[in-house]
């Protein structure tokens, strides 16, 4: 048994480090309450332990032990449910909610991170098991961490579209950002306030895939939510006029965001919108089909 001490220990160490590293990198996706950190670190530790005992278990011909991996998968699906439920509950108190799609995306990321931890731990312990070089196995662990970080990065709005400042103006009671209609604002007082403090940006999709993605309401809600999270909002429960709204130009497919931020800074808003993650659930690729390519030209 002692011969596996180092193998399992290194696996657990690298796996837990991986989880800690991934907790650090998700500042926008999760508020990071201390309790949340404890929960995810413990689950990460368990995932690491499961990953690192898999190979020694096989080496000892304890094949039944491997079925624990199935148990782990079940456990981590539970993580997704837990994240989804708690974020959805918190969403009700938000002035500008994240929206179901964004929450689903975040929950999925949290589940998937545990699998990455398991794979990292498995790789680390495997290398140590076969080579008996602790240093090499640690390096493998770091390499896996780097690769998974790179692979899991996901796209942001800035990758699929051009974001530029837009001009807010009124056509009668109708608020517009450039040529895109946003909403009808009745009160003259509110119109003045909006012109004084509001900001607008226009998002031009780079191709048909991006256009379809930006049409998704969940994706648009995510854009409004991130803009508010970064720049704040002047909206309160009795001023629905200041709700950030994302509307599209139905002819071209470009998207306009209107918001009344607490910090009026157009460069900040453009930068925030460019960094909004493209939601996995909103991703569309009509250009991958033949019919889509025919329609595109």
């Amino acid at each position, binding site marked *: 048994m002692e011969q596996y001490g180092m193998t399992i220990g290194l696996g657990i160490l690298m796996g837990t480090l991986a989880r800690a590293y991934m907790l650090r990198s998700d500042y926008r996706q999760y508020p990071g309450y201390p309790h949340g950190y404890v929960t995810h670190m413990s689950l990460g530790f368990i995932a690491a332990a499961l990953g690192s005992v898999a190979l020694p278990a096989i080496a000892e011909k304890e094949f039944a032990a491997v079925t624990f991996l199935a148990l782990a998968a079940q456990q981590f699906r539970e993580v997704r449910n837990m994240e989804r439920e708690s974020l959805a509950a918190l969403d009700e108190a938000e002035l500008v909610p994240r929206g179901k799609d964004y929450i689903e995306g975040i929950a999925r990321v949290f589940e998937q991170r545990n699998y990455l931890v398991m794979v990292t731990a498995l790789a680390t312990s495997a290398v140590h098991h076969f080579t008996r070089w602790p240093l090499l196995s640690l390096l493998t662990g770091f390499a896996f961490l780097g690769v998974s970080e790179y692979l899991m990065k996901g796209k942001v709005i800035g990758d699929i579209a051009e974001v530029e400042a837009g001009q807010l103006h009124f056509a009668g*009671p109708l608020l517009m950002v450039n040529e895109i209609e946003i909403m009808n604002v009745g*009160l003259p007082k509110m119109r003045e306030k909006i012109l004084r403090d509001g900001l607008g940006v226009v998002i031009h999709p780079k191709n048909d895939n991006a256009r379809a993605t930006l049409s998704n309401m969940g994706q648009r809600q995510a854009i409004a939510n991130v803009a508010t999270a970064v720049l704040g909002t002047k909206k309160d429960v009795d001023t629905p*006029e200041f709700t950030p709204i994302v509307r599209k130009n139905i002819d071209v497919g470009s998207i306009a965001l209107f918001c009344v931020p607490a910090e009026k800074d157009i460069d900040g808003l453009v930068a925030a919108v460019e960094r909004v993650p493209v939601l996995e659930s909103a991703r569309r690729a009509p250009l991958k089909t033949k019919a889509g390519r025919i329609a595109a030209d």
Partner: protein
Amino acid sequence: MAKDKLLAVVTLNKEAVGGDVPIFFASTEEEQARIAGTLAQVMKAMVHDVGNGVYVIVKH
């Protein structure tokens, strides 16, 4: 979206409105804006300008 609800109408033009929504009459545009603003604030709703001297208050 389906939860949008028309709560009240504030009008300068008595001929233009009718029906079973609460209707408020105003004699000047300032009065109309003031009434609509107060109602919207109380009911946490939004004022829209229909264009013919009629404001509608809608909960979104």
